[in-house]
């Protein structure tokens, strides 16, 4: 059958052609010695010119980390990680002190260009404002913070954001320039002792983004961070802290890629969101780390702690994620619904192919009165992958009127993959109303037949069905990301139809 032949061909090409971001940028880097010790923590802190309180905070986390053991409850399997065999700090070597954006290594700029961050934005990176007449009104501006290995290389639109009062800068700068804000909020959502990887991150995080939106301000543009792991054997540990003060709004996007390598690399990030009274944070992720080749060799271990705290009344935090990359994903963006009438949302598409393992989901912790949460999770497992949704919905005794709706659906493509659902639903008071539903199935033969009969190829038919399957979540993404995500989904599933 030609369709089968075509599929076989595609599968053959899968590991090389599929991942378009697998190139490596050759630049000089400065690295800390391999391994982890108090000296390395001090080295990182020193590199960042950090005040003493920050160093102490890191050291405390490091000492705590030494007493902790790796979590093993997730449905993922991987060889034991040697934490002494990783570089904890790698930065592009500055040619001299970077005072202006022009002095950024052109190789890095080229890298971002290749990654599809539009040239126009690269122009922005270089600080060249477009002429007024050239402005494309249909295109919204996006401020970008580009993180390359361990450091932030550039942040765009800083000046314009400053006018609105929004602080958007690498967290290493924020520690120096806005210590009062950082000290107040850092670790207040994900404490240093939270879990093994979060504690490790607290000790060695090198950079990340910091956002503060002052009261009543609606952030004038989308904020975005683009993470890139480039260096061999390095771990990336970024830390993101977003604070939306009373009545403010911010939408934040995050994207990530890495070169194609045979060894596994560790990525352990922490993201903390704080929404005060009436504030809203929308956090979108398109995660496309290198997933490993067709034999399951290489790829990123993505062990991420993401948590949002709806601290104020009427606040709202919305997580949207498209997870297509990484050899292993271990990630549970959560909402603590502390403020009365606060609400949390979680929209997720998790796609696994090849030998990928995904264990992802969310936690909705209802503490305040009349809080509501909504979980829409779409898992697609293909190839020989394992895809698990793991989620917790809990209503505290005093969280009267808590409401939750959960729908997690899984789609199986091929008979070698697995899809699993592990929800925990805990109702501790009678006024809580929880609804949960989950389904698992494959694409119905009837639907495929119908599409093929009308002239679509097998691949196109599957693409159509999958797009319909994930539509609920794609609609939640900002427009710029939705297009990219849709493409990514079709690429991720390429060769999976048989």
């Amino acid at each position, binding site marked *: 059958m030609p369709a089968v032949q075509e599929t076989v061909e595609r599968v053959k090409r899968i590991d090389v052609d599929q991942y378009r971001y697998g190139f490596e940028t050759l630049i000089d880097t400065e690295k800390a010695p391999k391994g982890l010790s108090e000296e390395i923590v001090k080295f990182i802190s020193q590199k960042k010119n950090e005040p003493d309180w920050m160093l102490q905070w890191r050291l405390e986390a490091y000492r705590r980390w030494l007493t902790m053991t790796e979590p093993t*409850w997730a449905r993922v399997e991987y060889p034991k990680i040697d934490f002494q065999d990783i570089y904890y700090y790698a930065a592009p070597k500055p040619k001299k002190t970077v005072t202006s954006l022009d002095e950024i290594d052109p190789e890095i700029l080229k890298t971002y260009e290749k990654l599809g961050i539009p040239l126009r934005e690269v122009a922005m990176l270089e600080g060249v404002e477009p002429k007024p007449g050239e402005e494309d009104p249909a295109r919204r501006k996006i401020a970008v913070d580009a993180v390359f290995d361990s450091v932030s290389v550039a942040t765009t639109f800083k000046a314009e954001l400053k006018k609105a009062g929004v602080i958007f800068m690498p967290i290493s700068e924020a520690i120096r320039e806005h210590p009062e804000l950082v000290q107040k909020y850092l670790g207040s959502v994900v404490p240093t002792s939270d879990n093994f990887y979060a504690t490790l991150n607290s000790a060695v995080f090198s950079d990340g983004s910091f956002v503060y939106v002052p009261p009543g301000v609606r952030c004038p543009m989308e904020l975005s961070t683009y993470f890139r792991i480039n260096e061999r054997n390095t771990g990336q540990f970024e830390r993101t802290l977003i604070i939306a003060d009373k009545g403010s709004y911010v939408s934040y996007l995050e994207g990530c890629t890495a070169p194609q390598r045979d060894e596994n690399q560790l990525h352990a990030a922490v993201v903390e969101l704080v929404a005060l009274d009436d504030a809203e944070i929308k956090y979108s992720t398109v995660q496309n780390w290198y997933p490993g080749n067709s034999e399951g060799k290489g790829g990123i271990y993505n062990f991420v702690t993401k948590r949002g705290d709806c601290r104020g009344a009427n606040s709202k935090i919305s997580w949207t994620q498209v997870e297509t990359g990484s050899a292993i994903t271990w990630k549970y963006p959560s909402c603590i619904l502390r403020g009365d009438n606060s609400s949390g949302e979680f929209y997720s598409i998790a796609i696994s192919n090849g030998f990928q393992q995904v264990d992802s989901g969310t936690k909705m912790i209802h503490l305040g009165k009349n809080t509501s949460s909504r979980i829409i999770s779409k898992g697609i497992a293909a190839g020989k992958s394992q895809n698990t949704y793991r989620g917790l919905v809990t209503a505290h*005794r005093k969280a*009267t009127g808590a409401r939750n709706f959960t729908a997690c659906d*899984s789609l*199986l*493509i*091929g*008979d*070698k*993959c*697995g*899809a*699993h*659902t*592990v*929800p*925990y*639903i*805990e*109702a*501790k*008071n*009678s*006024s*809580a*109303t*929880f*609804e*949960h*539903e*989950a*389904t*698992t*199935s*494959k694409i119905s033969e009837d639907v495929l037949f119908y599409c093929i009969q009308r002239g679509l190829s097998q691949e196109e038919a599957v693409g159509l069905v999958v797009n319909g399957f994930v539509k609920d979540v794609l609609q939640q993404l900002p427009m710029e990301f939705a297009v990219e995500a849709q493409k990514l989904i079709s690429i991720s599933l390429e060769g999976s139809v048989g």
Partner: protein
Amino acid sequence: MNVAVAKTGSGRAVSDLFASAEGRLPGSPAVIAARREAFETYERLGLPHRRIEEWKYTDLRALVGEVLPLAASPDAAALKRAAETVKAHAIEGARKLVLVDGVFAADLSDVKALASEASLKTLRETLEKEAGLLKTASTDAVISLNAAMATDGVVLSIADGAQFSAPVQIIHVATAASASAFTRSQVRIGKGVRATIVESFVAAGAKAYQVNDAVVLSVGDNADVAHIRLLDDSPDAVNVTSQFVTVGANTKLNFFNMTTGAAVSRLQGFITLAGEGSDLSINGVNLLKKTEHGDTTLVVDHAVPSCVSREIFRAVIDDRAHSVFQGRIIVRPDAQKTDGKMMTRALLLSDEAEADNKPELEIFADDVSCGHGATAGALDDSLLFYLKARGLPEKQAQALLIQAFVGEAIEQIADDGLREHVIGIAERWLEQRQ
């Protein structure tokens, strides 16, 4: 014995439990050795607690604290009390098999009537020859403890093709207060059999006792079996039951569990669909009040293709009671064309009631249709208002809605008589509430 001695809450070494009972435990030397090994496993693990994932919501260390010593063999007075209780709880026309404080009571059982239809032995007799019955497919601390301590049980074997008109009812009666009964039964159902098995747990005046029961049930091909379990232990008792069920091909198995008693109860079922084309229906109702804790944990393992499983659970939780439902559907790589559905709903009648649901899907085959649903919430105010507006008092209106709520699960019982019996239990529970 190179094992750290675990201490119970009262500081007494748990090995006393085994040492003091050892002389009374039946079995050949090989069986005693197997028991000792099982007890060492239990001693090493201790009572399950919340750090053990499967027991996350039922922390026996906190809820139970310690395992009570083995109950004494029932004396004449105890048997007399048991006889009265059996009379009150017997299903009409059923062939009764009675276990009093963990010991088979032949005088209270319909041994003769059954002899013509099935082969019956006691666990005590069986263990004199072989230790196989103490082994189970999966194990944990309470199952190991059961293997170590089981005093008796029924070993029932129903030959191929047997057609039972009356149900077989296994009745567990507790007469001894502050003591433990450990029972283990095996029911083997042959090919093409049509039968109904009922299990009842009741108290004859006993208080604060503990039951640890295990049932190994195998159902042959082309059979049609109903299995009903009614837990009506005394309100301060503890009941932990483990069931291991294997289902053959093209068989219908309809299981129903009703919990209306016990301070702490846990039913853990491990059901394997081992033959193609079978139809499994598992349903249950937990009616809990005061500080009762009721846990239903089920693992349905679709090991072969083309089976259907349906699970419907309802929990009604009043006062400070706590209901737990953990259901896992596993679909093995070869089990294509599996159709598995699970629905669990909890009704919280009080602000301090708690419902924890953990419905899991673990799927390794693609051509399947699986799903689960879970809800938790209070009675619908608008429905209550509707009924009250028509003149029904609050409690009665509630009772009506609760009956409808649990009715969806009870309806799954195919036998009219048994269904009515279960509805009667639910009605009495609701009456007591008023």
